[in-house]
């Protein structure tokens, strides 16, 4: 007992050192999203490519969706663009765009110049849907399940490594849930 007390300060200092050492490798910009597990916020905005078409949160339901926040002003959006094209081609998920605080003409030109990987892009000029989604900048990508519930948010560009480490596990999980829902006869197509 006595020896334990003697070593207690050393143990405490080591524990504190461990905690602080862990703090060194944490990214303070990696803020957990407040929207995980919550439904996609309601919105009514126009399609980027067509002003006359209105899109609401219901248009994102029915498939596992990725909602990618992008803008022509965003440098890293160009970096992740080829990966987004690959993801869209794989057909495993539906990739939607949220054109965030941008100009319609410039954004449409951007999609023409590169390649449009999105099923469609929502045009959020004021950034209001962005605020409802807790978006701080672009690129950010949300994973939304078949019932329109936000399951994951990734801040920063997507590349092969991020896709493997962050996206595939959650997508597999949702696919698995969906399969077991169907086998137990739970109706998830509401």
């Amino acid at each position: 007992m006595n020896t334990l007390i003697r070593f207690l300060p050393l143990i405490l200092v080591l524990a504190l050192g461990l905690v602080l050492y862990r703090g060194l490798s944490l990214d303070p910009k990696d803020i957990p999203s407040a929207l995980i597990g919550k439904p996609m916020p309601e919105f009514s905005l126009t399609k980027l490519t067509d002003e006359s078409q209105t899109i609401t949160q219901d248009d994102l339901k029915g498939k596992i969706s990725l909602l990618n926040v992008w803008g022509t002003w965003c440098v890293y959006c160009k970096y992740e663009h080829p990966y987004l094209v690959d993801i869209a081609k794989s057909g495993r998920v539906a990739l939607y765009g949220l054109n965030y605080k941008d100009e319609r003409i410039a954004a449409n030109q951007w999609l023409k110049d590169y390649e449009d990987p999105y099923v469609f892009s929502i045009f959020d000029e004021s950034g209001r849907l962005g605020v409802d989604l807790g978006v701080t900048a672009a690129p950010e990508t949300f994973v939304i399940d078949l019932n329109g519930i936000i399951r994951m948010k990734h801040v920063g560009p997507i590349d092969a490594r991020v896709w493997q480490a962050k996206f595939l596990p959650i997508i597999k999980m949702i696919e698995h849930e969906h399969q077991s829902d169907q086998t137990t006869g739970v109706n998830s197509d509401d």
Partner: protein
Amino acid sequence: MINLLFKTSIGFLFFYVVISTTVFASPVDTYAFNDAVTEKRFNELNKELRCPKCQNQNLADSNSPIAKDLRREVYELLHQGKADIEIMNYMVARYGDFVLYRPRVNSLTYVLWFGPAVLILIGVLVVVFIVRRKPIERKKVELSVDEKDKLTALLKDKDL
């Protein structure tokens, strides 16, 4: 000549003071308020809310696009007659607890709020424990009669 120099420097000083205060007093967009109380609440809220992108600045300090958007939200929510707490909750629902400069007390922040007090308490207890601990008792050494005789004999020898 000196008079002219004096006048121009006063002029510059005036210019500098007026311009600098008008420019730096609000790095912010201009919002019109119907009454002073709402304006005060607007400013207070912008000080309490943290810019989610630039985490060492509050909304009032930051000129980033997101801070600008959030100031607009605060302004509009105030105009809709929302209470301060409702506006805070609105922001927390979107940006999480990180958006508050003074984090709320919950199971995640107990350590943050009460950790320092607990550490001080532990320190005080340790000090009290050490101070009040009884001093180590020393055995009183009594010499036997023989030993006393020896001692006096030795001391006498030394004297010689």
